[in-house]
């Protein structure tokens, strides 16, 4: 049951075997994806035709490596731009929300809190289509009324950013609120008592305290943005982020280039994921 309670050896070993199997199950698909990035074949499947770096550095069709695939490189940049805006916006709004929910009491607070949590239980695809439908009808109305074009309200990067922002902000709010809740408000009072102004106290004491959480929230936001598919799919215009590009590729039939991209993604995500955990542990 716990380490201090004696258990039979058979039980302990069965339990350990189960845990081991579980982690094999977790690792298997990822390891497979990574391994086949080096298969010297145009399919990411058996048989194993030898080792190659082509799917990273190749320049000859059909073996064009990730680093020479313009569309993939472009979509990585697109994903990066989207992630930047999404994490920036959601951390800012999340920080405001955290202050609002932790520091203020007002009528309707509970209702707003539930509303704030709602994006967690709305399927991503619904978020996507509702924003698509809504922004399109606004755009139609505006265009009819003014004769101008409102491209920002049509599928494209702006909507992708807004769509992802709409639910990632909830995560940012939760992460930052959790830390702000742990903030001992007497620290702020101490700053006031030592002569700091209200804003000075927040800037010099509260925000530095929140910083690890804000950074962790930003990393989480970047990761969620990078991997988001359902919401993005409905809002994407001509600039497709990486997952959408990969999905299109996958539908058309996969080559190990996809494995190569995945491998890079896994490496980067793992690094970022670890980073965010390290930051969280500072809490």
């Amino acid at each position, binding site marked *: 049951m716990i380490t201090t309670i004696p258990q039979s050896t058979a039980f302990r070993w069965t339990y350990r075997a189960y845990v081991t199997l579980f982690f094999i199950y977790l690792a298997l698909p990822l390891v497979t994806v990574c391994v086949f990035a080096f298969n010297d074949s145009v*399919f990411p*499947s058996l048989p194993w035709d030898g080792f190659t770096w082509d799917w990273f550095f190749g320049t000859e*069709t059909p073996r*064009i490596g990730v680093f020479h695939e*313009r*569309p993939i490189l*472009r979509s990585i940049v697109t994903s990066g731009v989207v992630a930047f805006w999404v994490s920036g916006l959601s951390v800012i709004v999340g920080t405001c929300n955290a202050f609002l929910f932790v520091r203020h009491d007002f009528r309707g607070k509970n209702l707003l809190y539930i509303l704030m949590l709602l994006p967690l239980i709305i399927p991503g695809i619904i978020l996507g289509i509702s924003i*698509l439908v809504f922004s*399109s009808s606004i*755009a*139609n109305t505006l*265009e009819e009324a003014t004769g101008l*074009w409102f*491209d920002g309200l*049509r*599928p*494209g990067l702006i909507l992708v950013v807004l769509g992802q922002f709409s639910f990632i902000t909830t995560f940012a709010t939760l992460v930052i609120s959790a830390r702000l809740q742990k903030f001992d408000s007497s620290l702020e009072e101490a700053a006031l008592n030592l002569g700091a102004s209200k804003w000075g106290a927040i800037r010099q004491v509260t925000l530095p305290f929140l910083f690890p959480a804000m950074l962790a929230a930003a990393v989480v936001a970047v990761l969620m943005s990078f991997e988001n598919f359902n919401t993005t799919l409905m809002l994407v*215009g*001509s*600039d*497709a982020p990486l997952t959408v590009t990969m999905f*299109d590729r996958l*539908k*058309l*039939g*996969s*080559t190990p280039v996809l494995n190569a991209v995945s491998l890079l993604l896994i490496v980067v995500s793992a690094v970022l994921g670890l980073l965010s955990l390290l930051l969280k542990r500072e809490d």
Partner: protein
Amino acid sequence: DTLRLLTWGGYAPDEVVAMFEAETGHTVEVTKSNNEEMIAKLRATNGGGFDLAQPSQDRVAGAQAEFGIYKPIDLSKIDTSLFIPSMMQATQINTSFEGEVYGVPHVWGTSGLVVNTAEAGGVQDYLDLCGPDVAGKVSYRLKRPTLIGFAFSMGLDPFAAYGDADAYKEVLDQVEAKLVACKSNVKTYWDGGDEIKNLLRSGEVTASMAWDTGGWQLNDDNADITFVAPKSGALGWIDTFVIPSRGRADDAAYDWINFVMRPDIAAMITNTAGNFTASQGGDAGVDDALKLKYQASFPAEAIDNIKWYPAVPAGLEALEGAALDRINAAK
């Protein structure tokens, strides 16, 4: 300018793009897609987001009527002499709406059967895909060409029923029943050209309904696999150029059209995409091997038997969609 091109896989090979960019100074961003998604995207953006798209000719007029997502083609900006006149004309007729022309032809080809003759030599027509000898080794798309192909194979004439929704519904019901019964034979419904090629190449699928080019390309690696024009007739399609109503780089779009229709470029595209183009003299530079395969798949009577798609009247797609959904849901 940047030309945002919404097209099929293979229609804008990297070398062609590079040559075009070098020659004109435009940049090209290629998004690969299919008919439904092209229209869906343009509908969502209200005709924005892209500067040039390539739906099939039967999908232009209906979509224009419903959503108004294209702008008329300015034929004066196109070097019409580059096109095979008959195709140009047929396409213009099919893509006209309220007196304006919305599309010009680019690539044409057929859908038929791609078969591993060593393992599924018996497959000669669409209905043969439902035979017991290929059980579990079959693939086709769950899209309208499959409905049409099976209808012809069952001795029906879906195109004749286009004008009459009830009659067409009748046709669809029969096809639906057939495809539901056939479902157990299917390994998976394929989606993109490379996907079906992978399935055939790996041997997971031995007989499929697919585009002709796939068969010819696979033939290079495995002589057993090839395209077979079905007994009841291959389905002929022409993919077009259309200009989205809110495209922002019309000049670049026209430049692209005129560029890729040049016989030398057209030949390059044929060599990668596998399909012939509407370019006058474009087949001159095509690999002899490809021409041979084409001729082997299409003896004269097979060419005559090709069923060319007429434009889809608006509204029929809803019927087809419902039928496809039911097939998908069947167990």
